């Protein structure tokens, strides 16, 4: 038809394509091809982010697999500069990296290895409603595809399902046209790990520390997953060790059926077509959660359909009526046992382990529902600078101020760390419902400064986790949680509770401080007044006597023992549930049992603790060399111990 309409008037018509020709050009696009061209949709927009995404996908898979198999996860992440024979550039200059992630998970059966790593949209998690890190079965294959695209190197996989089973080694790539795996290498090898999976990707990337870096990602993984032992070999040769602080797995989330409120019309039509039930009422009661026979009958009545109708025959107007009837019927909220919250204790442990502060608190909200999907919001707070950092300040501030000068105030803004199903979200912070909820919370009510439309100011880390069977991300690269009213409301409620506890802590501390200051200023001023009086009297004054007299009055007026009581009792976590307060004397409250705290009071020297599960490098570095990051803990805490060893169950044969 375009030939008819667009007739070029003068020049010799350059044969416009005919409908037939155009039709011949139409062809199927494979997902792989699509994502090759649109790799930014999956988080491979730039080399720096690509490096992070690769690590993230591999770590997510490792943790999901181990947890599902009931194994306490131990993950080793190694980042190396890939030199390919040439002298290796420094990590900050390098453009090619080799990412290796080793886990102690259940391993993968041989025939599943190629499709899992080299076929997009192949996975175990898409078709069920259950909380897990991965959802679509895109992640690791996309990372492999990215490797193939930028370096041409295949993905190397080593996996063993148990000590007695064989270890398989594979090198695979995706055939992007067909979205099928191409196997380059497949053999049995010897491996020094009894069970688990190792993935190696060689990719083009950039390693840069700071915000949204691999380092930050792994630190945040450690915060939200205190049941994981994580070892990170950074490309600069440093090794960071994040020991396990909770010795049990989080409860296994259950798989649930969809809730009728969360179903879209198209999905309902498909379910009607695919169901095995013979009657409409049976279909409703059997394929959905929270629909009893009575509720199913009620829906049928409202829709003016027979409960005995064949589901396959319900389409068109009838299906639409059914859909409306479902929305109009009151149905119980979906069960929440499909979600496994991190838990207040674990959040506290995670924050305490990784972030230095004076006050920690955590809140887990009861389950709530958006669009028929149950979800749980958890929030946590770490506030303050930690006792050792506080001790440094008085020296720095010893210089008296000149007129117009001001003490350097902490104008740093709070840091928000966001999680969805225990996975840290590092990009697109401002698009995230979490971030908006933090902004909307009136932090000033809790004694924290906040400018209009800005994050609260102060040495504070705000932790927010959303756990759900289906986290509504704003994009495929899973960077920000979509802004549903129900979700934002829950986040705000959780933050408000954290804020209230923080406010109580701050007020209590402030009160004690002001009592102290009160006494202090009198002491200072008495000195001045006595000196001035001495000069006024021309030196004829018993200054010591006057000073004593005034000090006596001051003590009497400022409450004396009462003040001491308040001071000695500074804070104290009583009345503040799920909180830790750190004072110079150590933590109070629900302080986690950190490895090293148990057993003998006098810790034996580092070298005396052999640790077979860790590579030698990990042990050496885990001593906590002066690390520049905030995550650095004193060596006492950062030490792996016998207790940190996994209590593994018998390996199960499971595929991811």
């Amino acid at each position, binding site marked *: 038809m375009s030939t008819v309409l667009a007739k070029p008037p003068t020049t010799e018509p350059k044969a416009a394509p005919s409908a037939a020709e155009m039709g011949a050009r139409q062809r199927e696009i494979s997902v792989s091809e699509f994502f090759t061209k649109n790799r930014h949709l999956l988080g491979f927009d730039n080399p720096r982010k690509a490096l992070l995404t690769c690590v993230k996908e591999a770590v997510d898979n490792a943790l999901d697999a181990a947890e599902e198999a009931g194994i306490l996860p131990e993950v080793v992440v190694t980042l190396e500069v890939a030199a390919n024979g040439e002298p290796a550039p420094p990590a900050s200059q390098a453009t090619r990296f080799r990412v290796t992630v080793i886990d102690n998970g259940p391993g993968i059966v041989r025939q599943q290895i190629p499709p899992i790593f080299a076929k997009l949209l192949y996975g175990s998690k898409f078709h069920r409603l259950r909380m897990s890190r991965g959802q679509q079965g895109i992640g690791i294959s996309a990372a492999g595809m990215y490797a193939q695209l930028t370096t041409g190197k295949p993905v190397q996989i080593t996996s063993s399902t148990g000590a007695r089973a064989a270890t398989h080694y594979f090198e695979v790539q995706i055939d992007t046209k067909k979205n099928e795996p191409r196997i380059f290498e497949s053999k049995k090898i010897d491996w020094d790990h009894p069970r688990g999976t190792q993935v190696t990707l060689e990719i083009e990337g950039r390693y840069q520390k700071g915000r949204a870096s691999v380092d930050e990602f792994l630190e945040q993984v450690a915060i939200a997953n205190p049941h994981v032992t994580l070892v990170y070999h950074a490309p600069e040769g440093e090794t960071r060790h994040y020991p396990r602080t909770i010795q049990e797995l989080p409860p296994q989330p259950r798989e649930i059926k969809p809730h009728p409120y969360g179903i879209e019309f198209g999905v309902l039509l498909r379910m009607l077509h695919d169901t095995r039930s013979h009657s409409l009422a049976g279909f409703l009661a059997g394929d959905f959660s929270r629909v009893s026979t009575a509720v199913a009958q009620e829906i049928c009545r409202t829709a003016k359909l027979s409960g005995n109708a064949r589901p396959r025959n319900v389409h068109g107007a009838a299906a639409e009526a059914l859909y409306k009837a479902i929305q109009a019927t009151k149905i119980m909220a979906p069960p929440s046992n499909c979600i496994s919250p991190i838990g207040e204790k674990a959040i506290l442990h995670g924050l305490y382990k990784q972030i230095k502060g004076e006050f920690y608190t955590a809140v887990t909200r009861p389950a709530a529902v958006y669009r028929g999907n149950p979800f749980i919001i958890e929030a946590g707070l770490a506030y303050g600078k930690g006792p050792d950092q506080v001790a440094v300040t008085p020296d720095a501030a010893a210089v008296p101020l000149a007129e117009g000068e001001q003490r350097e105030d902490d104008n740093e803004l709070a840091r928000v760390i966001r999680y969805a199903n225990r996975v840290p979200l590092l990009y697109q912070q401002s698009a995230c419902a979490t971030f908006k909820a933090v902004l909307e919370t009136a932090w000033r009510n809790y004694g924290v400064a906040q400018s209009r439309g800005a994050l609260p100011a102060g040495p504070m880390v705000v932790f927010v986790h959303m756990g759900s069977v289906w986290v509504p991300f704003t994009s495929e690269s899973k960077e920000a949680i979509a802004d549903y009213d129900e979700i934002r409301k829950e986040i705000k409620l959780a933050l408000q509770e954290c804020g209230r506890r923080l406010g109580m802590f701050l007020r209590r501390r402030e009160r004690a401080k002001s009592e102290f200051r009160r006494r202090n200023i009198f002491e200072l*001023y008495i000195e*001045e007044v006595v000196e001035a009086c001495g*000069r006024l009297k021309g030196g004829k004054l018993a200054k010591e006597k*006057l000073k004593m007299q005034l000090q006596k009055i001051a003590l009497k007026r400022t409450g004396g023992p009462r003040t001491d009581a308040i001071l000695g009792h500074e804070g104290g976590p009583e009345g503040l549930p799920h909180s830790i307060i750190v004072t110079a004397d150590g933590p109070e409250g629900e302080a986690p049992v950190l490895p090293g705290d148990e057993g003998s009071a006098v810790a034996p020297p580092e070298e005396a603790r052999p640790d077979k599960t860790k590579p030698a490098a990990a042990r050496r570095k885990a001593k906590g060399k002066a690390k520049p990051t905030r995550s650095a803990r004193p060596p006492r805490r950062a030490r792996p111990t016998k207790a940190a060893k996994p209590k593994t169950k018998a390996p199960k044969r499971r595929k991811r």
Partner: protein
Amino acid sequence: MAQAKAKKIGAVEKKLISVADAVITAADRSKDPTLSIPIRSLANVNFNEKRGIIEMGKRKQERTFFNVSMAKKFMQTVLVADALSELQRADLTTSLREIYYRTKHTMKDSNENTFDNQNESDPLIEDLEVSLAALREELHVRAENAGSIVGPVVFGDDGDRVDCARLGKGGYSVPSIVEPDFIEIRRCTADFVLLVEKGTQWNRLSEDKFWRRYNCVLLTGNGQPPRGVRRLARRLHEEYKIPVYVLVDNDPWGYYIYSVVKQGSINLAFESERMAIPKAKFIGLSSADPDRYGLPRNVGIKLNDKDISRAKELLKYRWLQKKPWQEEIKRMLASGLKYELDALANKDFRYLTKTYLPRKLKEEDWLD
């Protein structure tokens, strides 16, 4: 001389030492040391109609040491008293700012300063002035030399003879302390004193030798006249029985300058006794002048919100309740405009000298 004073303790120094005594006595009795300081605000002044001056009321505030909100101020007050007594002993005069620097130091074993800026020390000096009933001059604290005088008057200043008729158009810079001990008025043959708000108009009058033709003393304080200028006008008025006329802008602030010259200020009401000139006359600019002298409306300036609220406050002052004054202020409010003295230049550069003032004086057109 300084030594002679050191031996015999002066009355002012005694007053300052009494601050230390208050502390010592209280400490002996295990009481909280307290200073009583008269309140310096509108609520604590009375207008003495008979004498025509503002007097300080009897209300006082207690400044106690062992009260968190007052402790620092108490300590600072004692420090300032100490610095002032040092001035007395050494027989020196100094400025407010130097007092601030003299008393500023870091307190022992802390990083806290005794004073952080001058705004903290200035009010304390005023507090001591009022509570000890000592004038600032007696405390040897001077302000900037911010005034000028020219005319047929002769002063003795540190033994020098200063003839203000022979100082060209610049005149003599009025020192901040003009008490008889410091400045002696040897001779004055003027018929009146003209106190001008602004330096520009004073310069115009001085340049035109207005004082010679009308035989007067020209005095300016460059805005709100400092104490030296006010005190000097008062002395000329009192000692030579000559009237004082005040020439200010036509706006609420001009009115208030006149009111301070005439009745004394609210903040330092206790000084009215020595400063106020109850017989001073308001010669202009009056809100009636634009009409009378044909000033066009376009040389006026619209009153802003602050002007309006200030004018409304003035209307309530007890010393401005006379009918002509109420009319004067209300007329300004009704017109919605204020006029600067400078606006007279719209007619002619020398309009002030040639027309305005001669006519005013001839018609005796002033407000009391």
